[in-house]
């Protein structure tokens, strides 16, 4: 992981900002999830707003949102996780998963990984549109949501 130096800034290339705006659109409905604690909903709204106003930075923001999705049954099961982390040093979008076949064992893997750093570096792996497809699919089905907000003096537990 590269060193992060304050005072430098994120650099976005090509259609990065348009993509991050799509990510914001994809995440926005999460804030309306029934039963979601108000502070979690606020954290999601904060991330959505921060993504939408890029490249302008959002001071003090430090939020992680994770959507997890499980499929399959006892014989062959799968679990996937779609995460976005946004803080002053890094914007990271990633997905990972695992497949468990009793005959073969557990196979864990990372899928997409997109990172932008405040020192101007970026690292992208995988098809970023696929991350959005995976997220949309999970949100249309059963999923669990974890939100961690350490922005400023806020500290919240995962839901």
């Amino acid at each position, binding site marked *: 992981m590269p060193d992060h130096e304050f005072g430098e800034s994120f650099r976005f290339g090509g259609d990065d900002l348009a993509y991050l705006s799509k990510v914001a659109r994809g995440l926005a409905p999460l804030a309306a999830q029934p039963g979601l604690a108000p502070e979690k909903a606020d954290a999601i709204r904060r991330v959505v707003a921060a993504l939408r106003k890029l490249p302008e930075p959002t001071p003090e923001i430090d939020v992680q949102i994770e959507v997890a999705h499980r*499929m399959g049954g006892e*014989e062959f099961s799968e679990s996937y996780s779609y995460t976005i982390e946004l803080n002053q040093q890094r914007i990271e979008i990633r997905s990972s998963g695992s497949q468990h*076949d009793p005959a073969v064992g557990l196979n864990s893997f990372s899928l997409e990984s997109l990172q932008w750093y405040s020192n101007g570096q970026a690292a992208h792996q995988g098809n970023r*549109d696929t991350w959005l*497809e995976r997220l949309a*699919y999970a949100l249309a089905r059963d999923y669990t949501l974890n939100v961690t907000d350490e922005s400023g003096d806020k500290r919240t537990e995962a839901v």
Partner: protein
Amino acid sequence: MAMNRRSFFQKAYGTAGAALITTLGRPEWLRGATARKASDVLYLGPDKIKVTRLAIGLGTNAGNVQRELGLQGVADHLKFAFDQGQFFWDTADAYKTHPHVKQALKSIPREKVTILTKTDVRTAADMKPALDRYLQELGTDYIDILLLHGMHTPKWPEEMKGVMDVISEAREKGVVRTHGASIHSLEALQTAAVTPWCKVHLQGINHAGVRMDSTDPAVVVAALRQSKAAGKGVLGMKVLGEGALKDQMDETLRFVMGIGCVDAFTIGAANRGELAHLISRIEAV
């Protein structure tokens, strides 16, 4: 849709095409002059890989739609397809459906099917172990068609040279029978058409420009014609616009099968019913 059929036809076929549409009232691709079946056998690209016109897609919504069927469910789906004459299967590492193909191969002889998969690896060092993993996951000792997944920059052959070299070496050893790229931009498609390494390519194509690399189908068709003229195997995806064109299935199937520059195409059905319907519509249009 940004253009009507006449303007598309004029762009794609030129003045002669425009005259033809005036004479006959309908473009060639709408007349369905040649009966076609999903199970038609074709030989793809310079390495002449045996495929069916319809590839059984295992990557709808990044494979989620098919994986919802479960391991044995997908295997049964592939067996059902195989029993209908559909022996061309389209997967990818990113879809996480390799184990499902392996499961299907427990009931279908490997040599009776053609397997296409795709890699997201971006370095030569990562490609070698990834290829070994694909073989293990798929339960095979060779891959018929291996594509670089999701090329979108016009310089992709330069950027991917290391990976391409590893795949070329695998082809020489018979581990990969042919190779190419799946394409996610018009610029990358135009590059593919003039890149000798790219023996097969896969890109979005439908009559309406939905989820394609250009909203103007004529522009994409022109690039595909260039590829076809160069002897490459041309595969279509997003024929139903990721489901957005389901209610225009006949029109988009007629289009893709009628433009004369798409050898075969992949569609991901969610279940047997959808697949059976799709097969019947391909024959009917």
